[in-house]
């Protein structure tokens, strides 16, 4: 629908007239009224305070006195009864002793960090960090458990979450074959086959390598690389091909994996 040019200029003029003659005076009046209203409120408030000063003073004092007491109380030191030593030689001896103890504790703490390669998985951010010789070698995206609770009626349910804590690499395999567990069939709406049925075996879906963390949890590759960085797995840890190879080569059986 098109309007003729004369109609548009007419509409513009009407709009300008409306703004200048109606809207602006209305806003001015509203501002005036508002300021008057605020002034009235202020006057009422002042009048109220003056009239009820006898109530307000004890009230304010009741509220303020405890604060004053707290401020005064803080000025008093607890008063430690231990005798303070000022003997220079004993201070030096104690300083040397403390330094020795700190070094010993540092050594004990440092011994807790693995010297060989280890992997840290952040399952909230879906990120992994590979450390070798105490240095960060690679930090990149991975995929961890989806937190999906799959229910198959009342009897069966599976929680797809990545466990947290300290783990060790239990085994390493190349060209792994995935033996599909029951939930993989249930999730696809398929009947669950026998325990060694050929349909349970899938080739090439786990990438070129797999590292076992025990209890069926693996670090493996994925066909769904676009989901890396998202919580989409059934509890395993998925890496892209390049990272998987790096992790596979860096970690030995027994290497530590920390998942949080």
């Amino acid at each position, binding site marked *: 629908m098109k309007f003729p040019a004369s109609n548009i200029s007419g509409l513009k003029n009407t709009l300008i007239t409306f703004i200048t003659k109606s809207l602006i005076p209305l806003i001015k009046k509203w501002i005036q009224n508002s300021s008057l209203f605020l002034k009235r409120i202020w006057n009422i408030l002042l009048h109220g305070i003056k009239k009820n*000063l*006898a*109530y307000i003073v*004890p009230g304010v004092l*009741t509220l303020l*006195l*405890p*604060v004053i*007491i*707290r401020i005064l*109380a*803080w000025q*008093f030191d*607890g008063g*430690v*009864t*231990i005798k*303070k*030593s000022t003997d220079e030689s*004993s*201070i030096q001896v*104690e*300083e040397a002793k*403390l330094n020795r103890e*700190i070094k010993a*504790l*540092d050594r*004990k*703490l440092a011994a*807790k*960090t*693995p010297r060989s390669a*280890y992997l*840290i998985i*952040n399952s*909230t*951010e879906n990120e992994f960090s590979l450390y070798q010789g105490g240095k960060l070698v690679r930090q990149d995206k991975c995929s961890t458990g*989806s*937190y*999906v*609770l*799959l*229910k*198959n*009626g009342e009897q*069966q349910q599976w929680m797809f*979450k990545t466990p*947290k*804590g*300290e783990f060790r690499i239990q085994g390493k395999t190349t060209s792994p074959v995935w033996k599909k567990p029951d939930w993989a069939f*249930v*999730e*696809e*709406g398929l009947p669950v086959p026998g325990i060694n049925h050929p349909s349970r075996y899938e080739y090439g879906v786990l990438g070129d390598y797999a590292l076992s963390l025990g209890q069926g949890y693996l670090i493996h590759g994925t066909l769904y690389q676009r*989901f890396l960085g*998202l*919580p*989409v797995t059934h509890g395993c840890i998925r890496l892209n091909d390049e990272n998987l190879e790096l992790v596979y080569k860096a970690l030995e059986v027994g290497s530590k994996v*920390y998942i*949080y």
Partner: protein
Amino acid sequence: MKSKFVLLYHKIQESGTPWKVYMIAVVVVFVFLTEIAISPLQKLNALEKSALSDSLYMTSFDSAYFNPELSVLAKEKSYREAMLELAASDSIQLIIDIPDSSISLSIKGVIIHHSRMTDLSIDPFFSRITLPAQLWIFSSPLEILKQQSTIIKEPVVEREAPKDTAEANQNAWQPDTLIQHPAFLRLSTTNGFRISVEQDRNVTAKDRWSRFFFHINNQIQNTGKAVWNFILLRKQDYHPEISISLPADEIRSVYRALPEKAYVVIKIQ
């Protein structure tokens, strides 16, 4: 002014309520507020008494530690002792390093997560704790007794198994756990300390409302507890707080990593 007080007195008399009732109300409010006001001092004294009464600890405490240089070393030592004790645990634990402005997660002595605080404020109470009490408190990990958060600990999504392949294909799901709630966290530890961790950026109205409700909820709980303690003639609790700001995703990582029974090591300046 005097005439006004006289007027007030007459007004009270005229209202039929005995003036004693008003006076008692004022005294009750005053006593209640005074109790709250002096509660930090009471707590400070209680902590110090506990430290001094621990004879085993006091035998290892040397008065030379009061020397400023030695006190720094003594605090470093107590921090490491706490870290070593923490390392004995199998589960993921928290480390708060105030001088370094950092917060870390550790498991069996290995630091697995480290984040820098964007903002930090500490209750002046902590600087008032005397050295013997400070070393006594912070040379061991503190148990986290309560964890309150706006974050869902385990974002579980329940799904019914499809009846057939057609239904399975229909329900081919997309990851949906990217919807994140604003991140606010409060940890209550032994000795009544509180660690409040909040996201450093509150951009949306939802963030600001979440923050407001998270804090107001705490205030209401505290006030309710204070009134209840007052009614039951109990000593008022005081909860010195360490407030930390972190990026929201860091808070999520920390909170979701913490087990139900978690411990925290705090390094105080």
